[in-house]
């Protein structure tokens, strides 16, 4: 069934966290998810299990029941969240201004098409040289 843009509900904060783990670790069992979340804050295994079940009902995750320990997988790619959140005006306003405070490896301005081509050329040279 070709699904264009599924009308999925917006994930809550807790659900988003689980989704993040799934995107990061790939399809995982409840135990894996619980362990990953545990790095940042203490949660109960049962809480995680409950949330995953709810998310499966909502369609946010897919459950693979072939094995004894069910494996959960995010139903949408990571970019889907960004698209979702982009619709939120407030989020947009906040994230727009957040640029000025954060530091990072790349600049806020995307490079132009010409510069990108130049980059690609450089990368190819580099890779060629590395081999």
């Amino acid at each position, binding site marked *: 069934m070709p699904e264009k843009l599924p009308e999925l509900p917006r994930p809550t904060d807790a659900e988003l966290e689980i989704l993040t783990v799934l995107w990061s670790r790939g399809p995982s069992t409840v135990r894996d998810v619980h362990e990953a979340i545990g790095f*940042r804050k203490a949660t109960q295994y049962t809480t995680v299990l409950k949330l995953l079940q709810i998310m499966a009902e909502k369609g946010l995750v897919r459950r693979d029941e072939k094995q004894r320990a069910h494996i959960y997988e995010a139903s949408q790619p990571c970019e889907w969240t960004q698209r979702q959140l982009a619709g939120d005006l407030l989020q947009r306003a906040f994230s727009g201004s957040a640029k000025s405070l*954060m530091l990072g490896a790349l600049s806020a301005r995307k490079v132009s098409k010409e510069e990108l081509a130049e980059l690609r050329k450089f990368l190819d040279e580099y890779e060629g040289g590395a081999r």
Partner: protein
Amino acid sequence: MNHLESWIHTPVAKALGWSLIHFLWQGMLIAFLLWMLLILCRPREARLRYALGCLALFAMAASFGLTFELLLPGGHAAIAVPARLALPVVPPGAAPALDVRPLDLKLALPWLVPLWMAGVLLLYLRSLASWIAVERLRRTGVCAATGDWQERLRRLRGRLNLDRSVALLESCLIDVPVVMGFLRPVILMPMGLLAGLSTDQVEAILLHELAHIRRWDYVVNLFQNLIEGLLFYHPAVWWVSGQVRTERENCCDDMVVKLKGDARGYAAALATLEQNRWSAREPALAASGGSLMKRIHRLLQQPEGPRASAAPILAAGLLLVSLGVAVAGWQNISTAAPKPVANAVPLTQREPAEAPAIVTPLPKKAPVSLVAQAVPPTSDQSAPVNGIETPYLRWMHEDVAYIISDEERIAFKHLQSDPDREHFIEQFWMRRDPTPGTTVNEFQEEHYRRIAYANDHFADKIDGWKTDRGRVYITYGPPDEIVSHPKGGGATSTFPFEEWRYRYIQDVGNDIVVEFVDANMSGEYRMTSDPSAKDALLSKPGPKYFVVGEVGRPGAFPLVTPTTVMEALVLAGGFRDFANRSEITIQRGAKTYIFNFKEVVTGQNRAQNIPLEPGDQIIVK
């Protein structure tokens, strides 16, 4: 709105306004200096260039602050002085001209400050929103990186000698690695990046972020934001800030290369990052930094192609403009700054060259006696126009005699026609109106109120406004304190005198005390320059009687009106604690009279209460 209108005329607001204007050339100057220094430095020396940039930014903030500090009048002037009607400054050259141009600039100037404040507020609100967004990013949509990455991060931290613990998180909301926080720093990696690039490349990027943390770049960036918000209107500030950011990235790049040794690999990692960003559909929620191409070129030590930079031309042009503003600015700063050096401010009086201005410290107290000022203007014997004292001349000689400046006076005399004179008078009052926008001219109203008050209260043989007290009242306003001794007072007998105390007079000083003495006992108080003029003993060899002994104010008293012993005792301040009330003697020549206070008071022996004669001595043991 009315509040705002009156606030913008306070010295604080004026100082702010002028500081903003002066920063136009100060900012240009600092930016120009930085530009020159950066040209002298080689592009390799990122740390030096970064330090210079930070210094320049700091210098900009400091010069703004210093200018504001210098322009603030000292202490008291911060209090809004509607009662004293602090006049707007009349620059010396402006008075003779009857056109409105200098006035327009002065009208628009005060509104700069509220506009600027609105801008600052907006930008700071935006910064607040940023901060909230940043805090959200570290909590929502994130998960901790896997254990092995945490381990690698720990090792990298060790190589940088970084003590603070750093959290490494993956976030689905960003598409470029970012770092945030300084007490509990966090590195956020876009989802999948850790697995997507080679380990070496990821480590290089992590090193870059850790370098930011180690150098406390996040804090410096916060300060940059604050300064940018404060001085947002000056492009030089943004240019310098951009330089700082560029050099900051270069510094971190250098640290990565130093530790990893592989510049090309790192450059490739950056290029890949940028490529990935292109594939993401959403606008980047990325950090600010320099141009990627420049950084890669610099890493690979490839010289950039010569690019016709517009910067020098732009800088030269802006410098010329700002020099022009600076010249205008300095001209005004000397007249705008209300320093104690008297300038053409109509509130202060004529220069001391015109009249003996002696400042004598009173023996009893620290405050300074304000002394005889300029000669009263009625002595200005200018020939009236057409032989008749026109109402315009009367206006100049009487109404505004004490508040018109010499330049204005000369200008007024040169006017030929009545419409010109009326226009001048209108301008005169407008210049002094503290609220130029309103129909009411508070200064004018107060001035005429003072004249009326003086005429009502100080008049005796001459008009109230012509007296010394009237002059002081009209010029400086009602004093904060009046100490009145209509029957004399003090340790020695004195003439009736009044002390007027002003807590602060602009351009004169604090705690000004003016004394008026009625030395002729005529009802007319003259301003005195000599504190001892009060002392009847020294100045008036008239009929006197003496009260000595245990009384409040022993001394000599003028015998002007018929005075009885009782009255004399009261005038002398009554009895002190150990006075002998029943054995008071009055020595008249060789004769001695007895005065028993108790008896006289109870009604017995009232005959003892004799009228005094000159030379009598009342002795209270």
